[in-house]
């Protein structure tokens, strides 16, 4: 592996307070270094181009049984995008549910270097890990689901906080998970009898805990375990008119666990995901509207929360989530195909294809809501740009979404054919805020890496992983707010993507395939507690599951480039 010197690029590195300066970036042995010997390095002339840390996606459904069912469901979606093999790339397919090789290549060709998969049952992590093994080019990790987990609900019911924390630590270590995910907490268990959550303070049947108790208990446990990423929550009531109230209530339940800011930046203890789907006003499908203003006000006044957008892009895509009851509702509303998979003792999932149309009032409201949230929340360190791929839109539309953040003109153009009633009932048209490049980098790299606790990613300081993207955007000639289409085009195909110090993409095309890493977290709890909880789990195992406990555990030998992050728990 030779050294690399990226010369004369316009660098954006918000973590290190670099905002569009012309700086050389030196790379050696997979890391950013202070300098290299130019005569002994590959020199990339980045004059009139921008240089960013590689993209870090905090929430994208790219691997696991649910995504695979989506692939299986939609051969017709694959036929739209057939990717032949090349001398470097394996064959693949896909638009909203791409095959694994194609997923890695397309992300890398967009300059992304880290993508985290946000929801899978612990029971299925062996499958997830194997899909990660076949997803090249990017570093990966997964957030196992805990929100309708029998152990979790029982520990919470019995007020066994320490045991709950130890159980989470055991699970993450055993199945190689990175963070804790809650999806419609309690609701997926209710769905197994055909129901759903009936209120934040209504106990989940048979377990005697409320969704609020699950949210609070899990948030606290995650903090005590010192996990690198906060609790990651898909709130109850997703998709329902008026649900912004549930979101705010959910977030407010955790306010007592707030942490101090550092260096003027917040340290959230909770992450509310794809807020767009959970931030509607109104009371029914006729008067549903954007509730973004209310959520934005709350988030602007509270530092304990971060969010990602889940922005809608008008397209033919696929909704897929652990929120089983929601997907059944969507099936009933749309008459579209429907996959449902309930997973014993833990969680479930649902999948429904959807075509978001500009002319449709509800879809238009959804589209507006996401952008309003992005534009009304002041601090970009709290706002991650996502489409909840593929729920809102496919990840290859990220450049388009970025132009909506950076350019009012771009929003106006796209909005031309959007449902008039939706436009008139919402504020988006009047919002003139435009994200700077720095804001965008925070939202797609620096901020996301920071929220995930990935200290060596999302920035270009010495010691950082050499995950870099060079884009063909000449800021002397292009004003992103005006020539937004040029920005979109450039962001779609990176001029160069560098992964761990190797050039893997040139001119928007993969030139070298690399496997990437799979991160997971090992939170060390006290030995006695760990032992006693493990024997409790063992005792319950035969009753809860249909497999042996030893076969539940994901062996490290099954993981390509297993990369554990060890932390010390406070319990």
């Amino acid at each position, binding site marked *: 592996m030779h050294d690399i010197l990226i010369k004369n690029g316009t660098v954006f590195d918000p973590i290190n307070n670099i905002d569009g300066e012309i700086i050389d970036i030196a790379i050696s042995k997979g890391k950013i270094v202070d300098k290299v010997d130019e005569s002994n390095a590959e020199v990339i002339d980045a004059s009139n181009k921008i240089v960013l840390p590689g993209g870090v996606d905090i929430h994208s459904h790219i*691997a696991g*049984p649910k*995504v*695979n*069912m989506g*692939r*299986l*469901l*939609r*051969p*017709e979606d*694959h036929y739209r995008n*057939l*990717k*032949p*093999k090349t001398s470097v790339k*394996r*064959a*693949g*397919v*896909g638009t909203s*549910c*791409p*095959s*694994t*090789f194609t997923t890695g290549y397309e992300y890398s060709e967009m300059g992304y270097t880290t993508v985290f998969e946000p929801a899978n049952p612990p*029971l*299925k992590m*062996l*499958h997830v890990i*194997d*899909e990660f093994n*076949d997803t090249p080019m990017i570093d990966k990790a997964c957030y196992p689901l805990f929100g309708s987990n029998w152990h979790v609900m029982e520990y919470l019911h019995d007020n066994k906080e320490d045991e709950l924390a130890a159980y989470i630590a055991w699970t993450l270590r055993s199945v190689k998970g990175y963070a804790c995910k809650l999806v419609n907490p309690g609701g997926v268990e209710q769905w*197994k*009898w*055909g129901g759903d959550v009936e209120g934040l303070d209504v106990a989940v049947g048979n377990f005697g805990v409320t969704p609020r108790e699950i949210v609070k208990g899990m948030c606290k446990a995650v903090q005590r375990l010192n996990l690198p990423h906060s609790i990651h929550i898909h709130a109850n009531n997703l998709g329902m008119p008026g649900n912004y109230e549930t979101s705010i209530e959910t977030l407010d339940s955790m306010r007592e666990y707030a942490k101090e800011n550092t260096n003027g930046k917040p340290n959230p203890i909770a992450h509310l995901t794809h807020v767009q789907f959970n931030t509607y006003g109104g009371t029914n499908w006729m008067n549903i509207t954007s509730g973004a203003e209310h959520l934005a006000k709350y988030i602007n006044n509270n530092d304990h929360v971060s969010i990602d957008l889940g922005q809608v892009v008008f397209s033919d895509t696929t909704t897929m989530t652990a929120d089983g009851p929601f997907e*059944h509702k969507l*099936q*009933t509303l749309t008459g579209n*195909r*429907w*996959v*449902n*998979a*309930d*997973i*014993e*003792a833990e969680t*479930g999932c649902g*999948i*429904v294809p959807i075509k978001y149309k500009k002319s449709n009032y509800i879809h238009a409201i959804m589209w507006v809501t996401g952008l309003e949230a992005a534009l009304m929340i002041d601090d970009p360190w709290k706002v991650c740009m996502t489409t909840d791929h593929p729920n809102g839109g496919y990840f290859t539309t990220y450049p388009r979404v970025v132009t909506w953040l950076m350019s009012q003109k771009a929003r106006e153009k796209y909005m031309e054919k959007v449902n008039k009633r939706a436009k008139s009932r919402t504020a988006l048209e009047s919002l003139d805020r435009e994200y700077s490049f720095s804001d965008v980098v925070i939202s797609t790299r620096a901020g996301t890496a920071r929220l995930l606790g990935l200290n060596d990613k999302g920035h270009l300081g010495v010691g950082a992983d050499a995950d870099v993207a060079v884009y063909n955007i000449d800021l002397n000639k292009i004003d992103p707010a005006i020539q937004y289409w040029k920005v979109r085009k450039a962001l779609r195909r990176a001029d160069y993507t560098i992964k761990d110090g190797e050039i893997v993409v040139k001119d928007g095309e993969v030139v070298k395939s690399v496997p990437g890493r799979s991160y997971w977290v090992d939170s060390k709890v006290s030995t006695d507690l760990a032992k006693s909880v493990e024997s409790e789990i063992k005792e319950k195992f035969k*009753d*809860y*599951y*249909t*497999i*042996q406990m*030893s*076969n539940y555990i994901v062996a490290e030998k*099954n993981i390509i480039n297993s990369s554990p992050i060890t932390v010390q728990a406070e319990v």
Partner: protein
Amino acid sequence: MEIFQDVVCPVCGCLCDDIEVSVENNKIVKARNACAMGTTKFLNYNNDRIPSPMIKNNGVQKPVSLEECIEKTAEILVKAKYPLIYGLSLSSVESVKVAIELTEEVGGVLDNQTSVCHGPGVQGIHDIGESTGSLGEIRHRADLIIAWGANLQEAHPRHMERYSYTSKGRYRNGKEDRNLIVIDVRETLTAKAADKFIQIEQGKDFEFINALRTALRLEQIQKDKVAGVPVEEIEKLAEVLRSCEFGVIFFGQGVTQVNGKGRNIDGLFSLTRDLNSWTKFLIMPARGHFNVAGVNQVATWQTGFPYAIDLSRGYPWYNPGETTIIDIIRRGESDATLVVGSDPIAHFPPAISKRMITTPLISIDPAHSMTTMVSDVVIPSSFAGIEYEGLAYRMDGLCLPLKKLVKEPDNTMSDEKVLKMILAKVRELKKVN
């Protein structure tokens, strides 16, 4: 003596993982907890092994070195303009990955037993979707279990005690809390054990499902009988389905491989979806081979398609009826076949088998079969889950790790290793060309 715990049984789609295997002097002497099928495999797998790699010379199979077989196989595949690679339901996931890569490299079609088995179920998913779950959900919650065209007692002997009718779950205490209904054309052992057996006429599943769905909508059926069953009984059955707390349908070849095929399962998936308006209902295929589900899983994530994957043009393409092995051979389009761990010559329609042997045929298999007996090249391999480790998927899509229990015979190796050798040789030959 060595005792292995938590062994995953490599026979049927139940993938029971509580087998305790005792090994003495590299021989399996006991397989505790295994059913009759599992025990038979664990104790007898070593019979009828293919003793040596072979190449057919002047119509007679002659022992040769493994290297010669690999070379010959690679030559055949490189030369072919539309080669087929078929089988893999008894191979590990890792082996399947190499097979996919090989198919991509030689520009051929990868197909699998799904094509002649649960393929119609897959087609049902494409058009309707599927309301399903993991087997534990059934054990914990199901009070109504329907076995449709599936003889669980004989094809999946431990299914009832581990996952369904007689199993004990959090909310159900075995068969006293459950109802088992069998819908089949003959009174199977499962039917004999059931609370109710509904016998339907052969090949009339679609008509029966249609009648059931009509009755479910409380609409009149303008007939006396459907599929030989009186309409009153169908209406009663609809009521039973609607009024259960948690129902599940397990379906098998009895309904996937009869008149109607893909649309039978389309009908069952639609029925299950409709039932979710009134109650909780799931449906699951009772997969046969222990890793057929695994082939579908890895093929889907790597290529987007679950079986019948045509990689001849460099990108994955899929359409059962076009890219399925039987249809390709029927049209006489293939010019070489590599079979891995399967016996298509014995099981395919005779006209297809006859055609199959008119083009070069390579077989990778541990034991003799009709296919190996007529193959031009035979490569003996080892048994997954006994002689080599790897991953496999249960019928409900759960991934489990297979163990290596004994050392394989000297001149054999895993499908994974054999396919890797072939792939390497193919690449070598292509460079020369």
